[in-house]
């Protein structure tokens, strides 16, 4: 059996950063390959390179024997590649049926009418993916799962030889995952070659024939799902070998009301439930980790706490409700978020970034904080005059944390600080966190999908899945009860 998709030596550089380095694999007709790796590992870039959305610097991409590397996207699509985007990208002003019809048309300037067979085919596809009831509605009125169905419907309509699916199950419930798996399996049954891109082996294990694992742009392992899960490097990347726990004395103020008390918080993005009835609390001096995969709702939860998205339910801080306060007020009030995207002021120097963080403090306090933070992160002192955009990823993360600490938060929210960082940087960051925990009485709420980083420092752990809290307990219990779910 010959390969429908054959990738070799694929390399992509963005400026000085090598996002994808010498990646190669092949997928035969009727085969599903899982491409996995943590955030920032380059797997999505590989997909974009195949589709021609980014141009590779080197390497070849053969579709049924034809090398399409460097071709414009629309020609690659016509050559037989279809892409199911992770984020739904429907035409908002057209109906579901029109969106499907769009994928069925020829690339011609002179085809004015679509023809009745196209309309019939569009209806057939809508029925196949389970959209027959909503064909005449607009995408903005659809629930999240139906939007994902629409993306699949477009792929079905294009009938490509090679189907690329980006994070097929992100944000779906267990029942929806099952029906999506069936749809994807039907691609295989029809002889398409399928590439599934995802974070974790586990979520695609049941569906894939083989798995290729990437980390920081490079090949790590390839084989069956079981083989890859057993692989030493893969385990280290995801779990960091053995989970080490450093105990901290139990907080003694258990009788007092918690510093942060989230009760029944829900967030809707359009029709999509991004957060559903989430309750959690953080006590003064505690270090709490919220563990969850991409799309589970961690960032939404933190944004709700920080007042950046409207939410239902009650969030209280130090006994007072946060309702009606602006995001800036909440930040000045002591809840400081260090977001996943870091949000640094790229063109400004490290020192300027830090000083902006301390602008609400009186000058002596600001200077004391600055001196202390330079001690905690010596590398920032060395780079004080450098524009923050020129820092490495790890240094930027340290700067983001330091800038948040400049505000002297009562509660520090850290969202995915390990995103896209190399293991050696992770260790440095981990040390800094430990130092912070030992030397100050700071309260931290950490969101992570990297369990290795999330557990060692935590006093308590919550697990967030599909917008809901599904587990709560100590790190020790986590390893026993939940550990395997995070490979």
């Amino acid at each position, binding site marked *: 059996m010959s390969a429908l998709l054959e990738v070799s030596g694929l390399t992509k550089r963005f400026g000085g950063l090598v996002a994808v380095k010498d990646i190669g694999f092949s997928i035969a007709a009727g085969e599903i390959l899982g491409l996995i790796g943590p955030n920032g590992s380059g797997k999505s870039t590989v997909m974009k390179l195949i589709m021609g959305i980014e141009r590779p610097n080197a390497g070849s991409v053969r579709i049924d024997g034809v090398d399409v590397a460097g071709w414009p996207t629309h020609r690659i699509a016509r050559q037989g590649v279809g892409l199911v985007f992770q984020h739904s990208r429907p035409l908002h002003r057209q109906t579901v049926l029109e969106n499907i019809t769009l994928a069925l048309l020829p690339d011609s300037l002179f085809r004015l009418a679509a023809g009745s067979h196209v309309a019939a085919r569009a209806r057939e596809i809508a029925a196949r993916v389970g959209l027959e009831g909503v064909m005449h509605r607009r995408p903005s009125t659809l629930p999240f799962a139906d939007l994902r169905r629409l993306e699949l419907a477009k792929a079905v309509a294009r009938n490509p030889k090679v189907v690329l699916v980006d994070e097929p199950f992100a944000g779906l419930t267990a029942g929806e995952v099952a029906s999506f798996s069936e749809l994807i399996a039907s691609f295989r049954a029809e002889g398409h070659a399928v590439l599934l891109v995802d974070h974790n082996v586990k979520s695609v294990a049941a569906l894939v024939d083989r798995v290729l694992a990437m980390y920081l742009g490079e090949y790590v392992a390839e084989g069956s799902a079981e083989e890859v899960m057993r692989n030493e490097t893969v385990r280290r990347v995801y779990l960091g070998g053995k989970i080490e726990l450093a105990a901290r004395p139990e907080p003694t103020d258990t009788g007092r009301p918690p510093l942060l008390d989230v009760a029944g918080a829900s967030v809707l993005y359009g029709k999509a439930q991004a957060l559903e009835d989430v309750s959690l609390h953080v006590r003064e001096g505690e270090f709490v980790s919220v563990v969850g995969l991409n799309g589970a709702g961690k960032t939404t939860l933190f944004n709700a706490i920080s007042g950046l998205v409207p939410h239902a339910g009650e969030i209280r801080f130090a006994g007072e409700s946060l309702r009606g306060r602006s*995001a*800036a007020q909440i*930040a*000045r009030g002591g809840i400081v978020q260090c977001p996943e995207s870091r949000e640094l002021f790229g063109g*400004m120097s490290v020192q300027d970034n830090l000083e*902006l963080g301390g602008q*609400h403090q009186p000058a002596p306090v600001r200077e004391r904080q600055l001196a202390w933070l330079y001690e905690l992160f010596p590398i920032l002192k060395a780079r004080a005059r450098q524009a923050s955009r020129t820092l490495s990823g790890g240094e930027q993360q340290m700067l983001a944390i330091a800038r948040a600490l400049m505000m002297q938060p009562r509660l520090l929210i850290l969202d995915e600080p390990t995103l896209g960082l190399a293991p050696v940087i992770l260790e440095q960051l981990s040390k800094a966190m430990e130092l912070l925990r030992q030397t100050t009485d700071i309260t931290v709420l950490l969101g992570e999908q990297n369990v290795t980083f999330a557990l060692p420092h935590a006093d308590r752990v919550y697990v967030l899945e599909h917008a809901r809290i599904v587990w709560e307990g100590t790190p020790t219990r986590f390893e026993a009860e939940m550990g395997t779910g995070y490979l």
Partner: protein
Amino acid sequence: MLTLQILIDGFAISSLYALGAVGFTLIFGVCGVLNLSHGAIMVAAAVAAWVFAGTYGAGPVGGALGGVVVGLVVAYVTYGLIVRPIQRSRLIPHEEKEIFVLTSTLLWGIMIQEAIAYFFTSNPKTVPPVIPGVINIAGVRTPTNELLTAVVSLGAIGLLWVLVNGTRRGRALLAAAINPRGLTLLGFELDRIYLLVWTIYGLLTGIAGVLLGAFLGVSSDNVGTLTASAFSIVVLGGLGSVSGSLVAAFVVGYLETCTAYLVSPTIRTVPVLLLLVAVVYVRPQGLLGRR
């Protein structure tokens, strides 16, 4: 002699252009607004100065101050009545806000222009200069007012520079231009920063309008041309880059002055337009822009 004349005239014109364009680029850089009522605000300030100084007998200084205040007020109205409602509107999809801001500020500019024409006619008006008289510079007789224009323009830009680079408020302003979300997370109210930017914008534009009225005279018919030249300078320099706008203002100012003296005043603006087309084709990010 001609060379010196071109140097002096070009300098004054360029300084004024720079002042007019700096506000325009500031408001784009920090708030993401291309304000097409820019020229109308300048003309409103100039006509107000003319009215206060003449009709109400406030004198040249009082007139100038009154003009600047009117410029500021019109800028506030532009922000409060047009730009802010659009930015907060739920009816307008996010990706279409830009075209709505453009169309609305354009209409608003036309309204200001027509109101001025109705109440004060569209005849050209010259604001009485704060310092009258003529100075002889190495044989070139130059109106004192022309020098004042250059001094005040560059002085105002200098003050802006000090504000942005030398004060904490200014750093926050710069940070808002780079990453507004990051600034919110650090406890800054963006609304207040935007109000500050519109205040600075109103003052700069008001001053530019009054100076223009005293230097070259204005008419309500100039509204479109003034907006277009501010837009051109800002694009030439790189959208949102203040230093780029300064350089571009001098390039445009001198190019126009040279064309007017050496070729013919009738084609004054043509080389600038051609340069603009060339720059946008070859270097779309502008002379000093980065993107």
